[in-house]
Every structure is written in structure tokens, then in C-alpha cells.
């Protein structure tokens, strides 16, 4: 029993997600250990972003069971598409943070307020405490000098770094990255990856990353999962997946993206 000493933090058990007639996740099984850094790769439409969006409670699912730190996403008597009360969903969300492809900063708030607002409004921190926390995080992402700027005055790379600081300010156990560099000009990708690379050294933070940056995935992940048609087709250590993929679909996909 030594291998399974720590129970998984995240557990998908037979989760099925449909959009109308389209099945996006099909009897999906997936576990993530606390502190693990997992990268999800695969062709578009294979369901990898949906996994993150379900975890963030942005999308409901129809069948199966999903737990986070022992908490079930769906309640036995839950109603509505999520089969859970808003209060229950907020309990779950308090453990999860997300970084979006299109940054999604609040355009009417300064960088400082973008980062400090949720700690004040949601966690109940005082403005001073929240701003101190925000300053630490802006230092981490190298943007202290931009704290009074507005999102429209920042480059895409800077906006995404603010978005990472904003997510971290809520101290999530799980941080989800949904193609965080896909909307960036090539010369701005590096600065965002550098910040994520630093975070990957945080022992306690569990990270799920959807990306097309294969070299980066190889560098930061403990595990790489290759998605195809709503299921994990192959998974393993970055070395195993990138140097010796066993499934023909994985070989095909890697050949196409690595050129």
C-alpha cells in the first residue's frame, strides 16, 4: 500500500460530459495526486479544456462522479444543471483557480485591484492585507511597477502574468491553466512560461496545464496525458510520452505538432 499512501486530490470516475448530441468526455477516469503537475495534450476538441472547465465548475457534467479533496461535485439532492447548490459550488471553487487563454482581466480595474479585489470581496481580507498579498504576487510575476496600470495598457504577456497573480491571490490548492500562451504573440510566450515554470517548483500547488507548448510540457510536468476523443489515450512521464510513445494516435499527434 505504499504507493497509494496519499489519496488523490482530484478524482474523475466514469465522468461523461455531453454538449447536446456531442459527447466531449466519455466515461472519463482520471486522478491527480496532491502537488502533482499534470499536462494535458491532444488534438483540439479532444476534451482537455473541458476537464479544466468542469473542475472550475464552469461546465456541469451528466454522469459519473467527480471529487476534489474528498468533496463530491454533485450533491445527492442537488438540482439544476450542476446538481448542486450555489453554496456547495462556492465551497468547491474556493480550492480551485484558473488562468484563461484570453486572460479575462477586469478592464475597469487597475492591476492592483484586479489582484486584490477577490481577496477583499470573497475572502474578507482588509484592503491593506489584500494589497500586501497582491504586491507580493506582483513581485513574483515581475509586475510591481505596473500595479496602477489598467489591463488595456499592458501587453498580452503582462496581462497573463497579472491573471496568474490574480488566481494565486485566492491561494487555491489546484491551479488550472487553459492554453495560457495560445493567445500570445510568439515573443511574449517566454515570459509567461517563465512564471509558470517558477510555480511548478511550488511543492504544494497542484497544477493542471492544457498547452500546445510541448517542450515546456516536457520540462515542467510530472505526468503528461494524451487525450483523444474524450478519453485519455496514453499517459506517463514526459520522457515516456515524448521519447517512446506507444499508442499510434500519440505518435501521429506528436509527429504533427513537433514537425
Amino acid at each position, binding site marked *: 500500500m505504499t504507493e497509494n499512501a496519499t489519496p488523490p486530490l482530484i478524482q474523475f470516475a466514469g465522468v461523461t460530459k455531453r454538449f447536446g448530441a456531442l459527447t466531449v468526455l466519455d466515461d472519463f477516469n482520471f486522478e491527480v495526486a496532491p502537488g502533482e503537475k499534470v499536462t494535458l495534450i491532444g488534438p483540439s476538441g479532444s476534451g482537455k479544456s473541458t476537464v479544466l472547465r468542469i473542475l472550475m465548475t464552469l461546465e456541469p457534467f451528466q454522469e459519473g462522479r467527480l471529487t476534489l479533496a474528498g468533496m463530491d461535485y454533485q450533491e445527492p439532492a442537488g438540482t439544476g444543471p450542476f446538481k448542486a447548490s450555489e453554496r456547495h459550488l462556492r465551497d468547491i471553487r474556493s480550492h480551485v483557480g484558473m488562468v484563461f487563454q484570453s486572460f*479575462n482581466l*477586469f478592464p475597469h480595474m487597475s492591476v492592483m485591484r484586479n489582484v486584490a479585489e477577490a481577496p477583499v470581496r470573497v475572502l474578507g481580507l482588509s484592503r491593506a492585507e489584500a494589497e500586501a498579498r497582491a504586491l507580493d504576487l506582483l513581485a513574483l510575476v515581475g509586475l510591481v511597477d505596473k500595479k496602477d496600470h489598467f489591463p488595456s495598457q499592458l501587453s498580452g504577456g503582462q496581462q497573463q502574468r497579472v491573471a496568474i497573480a490574480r488566481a494565486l491571490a485566492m491561494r487555491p490548492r489546484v491551479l488550472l491553466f487553459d492554453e495560457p500562451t495560445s493567445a500570445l504573440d510568439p515573443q511574449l510566450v517566454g515570459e509567461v512560461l517563465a512564471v509558470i515554470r517558477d510555480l511548478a517548483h511550488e511543492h504544494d500547488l497542484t497544477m493542471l496545464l492544457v498547452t500546445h507548448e510541448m517542450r515546456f510540457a516536457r520540462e515542467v510536468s510530472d505526468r503528461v496525458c494524451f487525450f483523444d476523443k474524450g478519453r485519455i489515450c496514453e499517459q506517463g512521464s514526459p520522457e515516456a510520452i515524448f521519447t517512446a510513445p506507444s499508442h499510434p494516435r500519440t505518435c501521429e499527434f506528436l509527429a504533427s505538432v513537433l514537425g
Partner: protein
Amino acid sequence: MQWVSYLPSLAQGALVTAWITLAAIAVGAVLAFVAGIARVEGGRAVSTLALCYTELFRGTSLLVQLFWFYYALPLIGISFEPVATGILVLALHVGAYGSEIVRGALASVSVQQFEAARALNFGRMHTLIHVTLPQAIIEMLPAFGNLAIETLKLSSLVSLISIADLTFRAQSIRNLTLDSAGVYSLTLVGYFAMSLVLMLVMRLIERWARRGAAFPRAAHS
């Protein structure tokens, strides 16, 4: 120079028009936000109620509404001062049209903003007050400016429920002097001057709302 003698009376009427218009805009704006937010955020019952209000007041004649509130409502024992009736009916009119502006602007906030708010665990109230409304209000302002000017012009209908507004005074003077050209020309100038002021104030509010760097589109408009 006979027309100079009209001015004191017309000015008094203009004051009444200004007061009724501003009060109707203020009360109407509150109604517009309540009904517009109810349409977007309310449950089925609340949003249906708001929809009924909006459609009822958009779909009937303002003049008939005025008559109804002024002449018909007292028959069931509810009556207000003429000025209060005028303000109330105009405000209900502003609220009905304004609620559509509020609803449309809230609906135009991108779904990504809602998702970002949810990912940060904002509740519905916080999302509305701190995330979506501040962005939506910027979008509402030009339409609200139009509505304010529309309200000023529609306020002339209250002269028909015996309120001594600018139009009412103009009618009275004309009946005495029969100088239609002079009186109505001055009256037009009066409305135009007041709508210019309203337009200017709305511009200033818009510029103030778009101040700073948060909404850079202001630079181009």
C-alpha cells in the same frame, strides 16, 4: 419688441419643465436599473414581472397614460398633484425604455468576464456590482443621453394635464396675444437650449466615466 414681455412667464414655465424632466430622469433611472437587472438576474417570476412593466409602458401612448393617471386613477380613490402625476408617468416611461438599455448593456458584457468572476469565487451580487455593472454602465451612457433628451421633449405633454410648464405657458400667451410665430419660436429656442444643456451634461458624465486608461476607446470617440 413685444416678445420680451413673454420671457418672465416662459422662464417660469421652463423651470417647471426642467424640474419635471430632471425628476423623471432621476426616478426613471432607478426604475430602469431595477427592472433591467430584474430582467437579467431575477428568477422567472421577477423577470416576467419586469418584462410586463416594460412592455406595458412601451406599448401604450404616453399621453393616454397621463390622462389615465390624472383622470381615471382618482376614480378608484388614488390621486396625486398634477406635477407628481407628470413626474410619475414620465418616470415610468423612462424606466420602461431605460430597462431595455440596462438589460442590453448587461447582456453585452462578455461571458468570459462572468467566468473570470466565477473562477475567483465571486457571488452573484459581487459579480453584478463589481464586475458586470461597471462595464455595462459605460455602454449604457450614450443611450441614456438620448433617452434624457427624449424625456425633455415628451415632458411637453404634461401641459395637457394642466401643469404650467413651458408649453402650457406658451399656449396661454398665444391665446392672449395671438402672436403664434413669436411665442412658439421662443418656445422652440427654450427647449433647444435645455436639451443642449442636457446633452452637454451627458457628454461630461460619459467623459468622466471613461476617464483614465480603463476604457481606451474614449480616445477614438
